[in-house]
Every structure is written in structure tokens, then in C-alpha cells.
């Protein structure tokens, strides 16, 4: 008797056991610890925290281990955990001007108050595989340390431009910003919601969309006004206390893009801002976010909206990799009911076409049959 090829509970359990075995790999090789992931795969951890929108390096490291290094899967694990956490309240807004910077560069000024601080960067490294790294146990020589001095919290470049009146002012608002994890995004979306979406959007997507604006699909003339990364204190005022206390530190990367703007009927020519702020150390992500923020302000600034990167519904609806990968991979699920309908529909259409052809040329078919005969 035919047995339908359908998975049961046993099949799922076996598949997952096999997955666990694969995850561990060759048992003769020492198991990687979550502490090693947290300390040595820091940029993976940062990406998972950023797109998982949950700042917890230990959980991110665990997610990476559990996901076998598949970062989108790790992001998904962290998101699914995050959504179950109770909310105690909102922290005070973080102040990136008060950041203890580890790196801070500006592409618009050769030198500036606070100086250029190169920090730990891949920039200017030669991308040559370092075979010495394959041998274990070699601790790198200690890097030279500078006295942080008074430059630990340098002023913002965009602030300097604003003081000269060259930077378009942002509209200050005391309104409670929307929360896309609690309320669905509706269009047109406010900028705060756009920024939330971009802050946890897929890095590859943001990169490509931002890149498209540089290649002419959109209207961007950006300069990196300032890029800074470092540590910040997060403060929270519990209602029981009534005053702010420090509850932890965050490492963040902030990018302020300065964009040329020719002016409009109401606005004089000036520079406009694209803003990027992300968890962890990802300049690629912060820069792409800043480009996209500016690009999505096209309508607001009276520019023609013609490229995908300027279309907020297009960008915001497709940036989330947990949504995207889930829906794309759902095609693996059985679709045989729908496919059966398609089969019947295609067969019926073919039969109709065949009947029509036969009615039009009743002899042709006969001739073919004869020709095909022995």
C-alpha cells in the first residue's frame, strides 16, 4: 500500500538530533565556547545584537553558537527571545556627544577639535591572509596607548556646521516616537520609525540600497561628516527612585553624513543630514543607514522620488532579514494543494487549446499521425 511521503514527529526529532550532531562537528576538535565567540568573533556578535535589536553580547554569542555561525538564524533566535522580555520602561535618550570614543574620523576636515582618532580598524590593512593566525597561541603584541586627555568626548562635526548656519536644523520633537516592534509600520512613516527600521535592517540590504544611491539611482552627494564609535552609559529613572541611575554601557557606532542640498522654495541652499546609529562596531552598517536616512528624506525635501532607495514603502518593507528569510524559505513548505490546482488549471487550458486547434485544422492532426507511423 502506498504511504504518503509526509513527515511525522519522529522524523522531526531525528532531523533535529542530526542537526545537533552537525553543529558540534568533529568531536576531536575542542568545542567553541560562547565566551570565545563573544571575545573573538566580536563583529559577528555586534551584527547579531544590532539586527536582533537586543544588546546582550552573551546571548548573541549563544545564538551564534546555536545557529552554527549562520548570523541571520542567530538574529532570529535573539529576536524570538527578545520579544518575550517584559518592558520596565524606556531609558533616557543616550547622548553620543558624551561618548568615550575609541575611533572618530571625519572626511570633511583635515583636522578638527578632538582630532582624528583612527582606532582599531580594518581600514589601511592589506588584505593578505595572515597564515601566522592559523597557528594558535600567539598573542599579538600590545598596541601603544595614548592618554585620552581632554579629547575623550570630542564635539560633533555637524554641530560645528550648524553653528555656521550651513546645516539644516532638525525639527526637535518631544513626541513619543513610534515603536515598530509594537505597532505595524504605516505609510508614510515618521522618521523615527524609519530610523528604527534601518537600525535593525539587514546589513547586506542596507549596503546594496545605499550603494545604489551612489551609482545614480537616487540623489545623494554624501560626505562622512563624522563617524565615531565608542562606549556610552545608558541611564534609566525607575519610578520608585525618581532619579536617573546608570544601568549599563553600550558600544555604538554613529555616522553623520553631510549631504549637499541645492535648496527649495522655502529652504536656502545648505547641507542636510543623514543619520546612522547602530549597536556595536559596524561602520559599514552605520554609514549605509545614514545614506538611506538621507535618501528616504527625498519627499520631505522636495526632491523627485524615482529610485528604489528613495521609496520608503519599498525600503522599509523589505529591509528585515528575519521576515525576508522566513517568507523566502517558507517555499520549502509543502504547497501540493495549490500546485494540484495549478496542474488542473494548466491541463484544462491545454485541453482547450488542443480542442481549438483540432477544430480549426481537423486534417492536420490526422496527417501528423500518419507521418509519425511506421
Amino acid at each position, binding site marked *: 500500500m502506498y504511504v504518503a511521503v509526509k513527515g511525522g*514527529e519522529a522524523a522531526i526529532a531525528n532531523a533535529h538530533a542530526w542537526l545537533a550532531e552537525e553543529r558540534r562537528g568533529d568531536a576531536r576538535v575542542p568545542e567553541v565556547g560562547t565566551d570565545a565567540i563573544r571575545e573573538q568573533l566580536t563583529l559577528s556578535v555586534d551584527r547579531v545584537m544590532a539586527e536582533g535589536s537586543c544588546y546582550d553580547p552573551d546571548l548573541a554569542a549563544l545564538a551564534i553558537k546555536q545557529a552554527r555561525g549562520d548570523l541571520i538564524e542567530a538574529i532570529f533566535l535573539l529576536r524570538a527571545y527578545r520579544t518575550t522580555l*517584559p518592558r520596565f520602561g524606556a531609558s533616557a535618550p543616550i547622548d553620543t556627544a558624551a561618548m568615550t570614543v575609541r575611533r572618530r574620523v571625519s572626511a570633511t576636515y583635515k583636522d578638527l577639535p578632538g582630532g582624528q582618532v583612527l582606532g582599531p580598524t580594518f581600514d589601511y590593512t592589506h588584505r593578505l591572509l595572515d597564515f601566522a593566525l592559523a597557528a594558535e597561541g600567539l598573542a599579538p603584541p600590545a598596541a601603544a596607548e595614548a592618554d585620552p586627555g581632554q579629547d575623550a568626548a570630542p564635539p560633533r562635526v555637524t554641530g560645528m556646521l550648524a553653528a555656521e548656519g550651513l546645516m539644516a536644523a532638525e525639527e526637535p520633537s518631544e513626541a513619543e516616537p513610534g515603536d515598530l516592534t509594537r505597532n505595524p509600520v504605516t505609510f508614510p512613516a515618521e522618521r523615527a520609525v524609519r530610523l528604527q527600521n534601518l537600525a535593525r535592517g539587514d546589513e547586506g540590504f542596507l549596503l546594496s540600497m545605499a550603494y545604489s544611491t551612489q551609482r545614480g539611482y537616487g540623489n545623494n552627494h554624501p560626505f562622512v561628516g563624522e563617524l565615531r564609535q565608542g562606549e556610552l552609559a545608558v541611564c534609566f529613572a525607575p519610578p520608585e527612585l525618581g532619579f536617573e541611575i546608570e544601568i549599563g554601557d553600550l558600544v555604538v557606532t554613529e555616522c553623520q553624513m553631510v549631504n549637499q542640498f541645492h535648496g527649495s522654495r522655502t529652504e536656502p541652499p545648505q547641507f542636510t543630514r543623514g543619520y546612522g546609529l547602530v549597536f556595536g562596531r559596524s561602520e559599514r552598517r552605520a554609514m549605509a543607514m545614514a545614506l538611506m536616512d538621507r535618501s528616504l528624506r527625498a519627499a520631505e525635501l522636495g526632491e523627485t522620488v524615482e529610485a528604489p532607495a528613495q521609496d520608503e*514603502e519599498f525600503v522599509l518593507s523589505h529591509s528585515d532579514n528575519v521576515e525576508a528569510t*522566513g*517568507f523566502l*524559505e517558507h517555499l520549502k513548505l509543502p504547497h*501540493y494543494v495549490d500546485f*494540484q490546482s*495549478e496542474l488542473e488549471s494548466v491541463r484544462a487550458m491545454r485541453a482547450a487549446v488542443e480542442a481549438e486547434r483540432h477544430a480549426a485544422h481537423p486534417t492536420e492532426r490526422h496527417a501528423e499521425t500518419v507521418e509519425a507511423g511506421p
Partner: protein
Amino acid sequence: MSGYNFAYLDEATKRMIRRALLKAVAVPGHQVPFGSREMPLPYGWGTGGIQVTASVIGADDTLKVIDQGADDTTNAVSIRRFFARVAPGLRTTERTAEATVIQTRHRIPETPLREGQVLVYQVPQPEPLFRLEPRRAETRRLHALADYGLMQVKLYEDIARHGRVGSSYDHPVMVNGRYLMSPSPIPSFDNPKMHRSPALQLFGAGRERRLYAVPPYTDVQSLDFEDHPFVPLRAKGRCTLCGAGDSYLDEVVTDDRGGRIFVCSDTDFCTGRQTMREAAE
């Protein structure tokens, strides 16, 4: 599973979803936005349906989960196991008649539903107009104006080009004479079952963050034309296992020489008929 509320979602989230569902029931066929949560199952794999089920289910309910009409397809098994883990006390069943809540992907059970039952659909794309107008800001306006000319023209073009309507599943329906609605990707064969069903039909689209509903005994008409009436499709033939000639059939390829048989897609319906037949023999 410790550390999680009954049925996974916290009570505040369930209340938010139930409020959205009440609105959905009050405006049949209208898509209601809701604060969809990340679920431990992937988007596109039933997160909308799972959130709806989690919000309406109680410990005294009996849950049935089907995918492609079958209780034993992997994703149905996975979702049923999920609820068995996070909803202590909940009974699960494979029998349509015994279930109080049925979560489904792509099918409506063959056994007619009764009053008091809730059918929860997993919906990949709640917007019936999305292939014609991808901008949701625009489709919302079209729904508000009940401007469904786009869809009528699409159906007309199908008929003009192919002699028949091209959509064999997810064929759009008009609910209560007002809102155009996606019935989810059920085969058009199932569409008539939605019309004036005594059961409450709830639809959840997690990724798209929309809920909608068809209250019991509501008119649900498949979109068509007077001179080209809607025709539900099914494979011609009978089920090899139970002999049913009126159920929706899956085609099963048995060899590589063109051999094929047809079996009921609804496994509970098929098993029930086989049992009855054996009892009669």
C-alpha cells in the same frame, strides 16, 4: 515549558490581538493592522495563525492543526507540538469534529464545520490586490473606496486570454458585499465552504501584520462574472484510499513512467471514511 505564559504570548499581547480580532469581526473582510510579535517559528511559516490561535485558545479547548489538509505534514506537526509544549492542559486532536479551534494552512476541512468552532487561517499575503498594486498605502485607499476595478479587469483579461480565470487558488472573494478579501492560498475548490459557514473564520498574517475575519453566517462570494461564473476546480477522479469522489485530491506520482494515483488531501476525512468502510465490510 517553564518561563513562558500559557500559549506563549503574554496576556497584554493576547488582549491587543483580541481587540484587533473584535474589530475584524465587526468589519468582515477588512484588514486590521496589529502589533505582530516575533514568534519562535519563522515568518511565513504560520506566525499570524499561531498568534491568533494563542490569543483565542484556552486550556479547555481542543486544537487541530492541518497543513495541506493533513495533520501529519511536518509544519502542522511542529505547530501542534509547539502548542502542546506552551499550553499545558490543552488537548490536541486530528478529528475535525472534535476540535474547537482548527489552525490551517491552504485548506478548509471537508467535514462541514459547526457553530462554536473557530477556523484559524495562516495567511502569507493578506492583500488581495498586491500583484496589481504593490503599494499598501494605495491599496488601503482602494479598499476604502471599494474600488475593485483592478481585480475585475484582471479576471476579465484572464478570460479573454485563456478562456478562464487564471487563479486556481487564493481566488479573491467578496465578503459581506463590501470588502475584497484573500481567502489565503486555499484551492478555489474550498472557496464555497466559506460562504455562510457556521464557524468563526479568523485570518492571521504575521509578517504583514494584519488580521481579518469572517463571522459565522456571512456571505462570501468568489469574484466572477454573470456570463463566466466561478467554477471550483478539482482533479477528476476518486481517492484511491477511501473512494471519495467529492473531496479535494492530491496527485501522488508513484513511479517514473507516468503512474499516479489520487488521494484525499484531508487526512482526517479520508481516515474516517476508510474506518467506516472497514466497519461496514
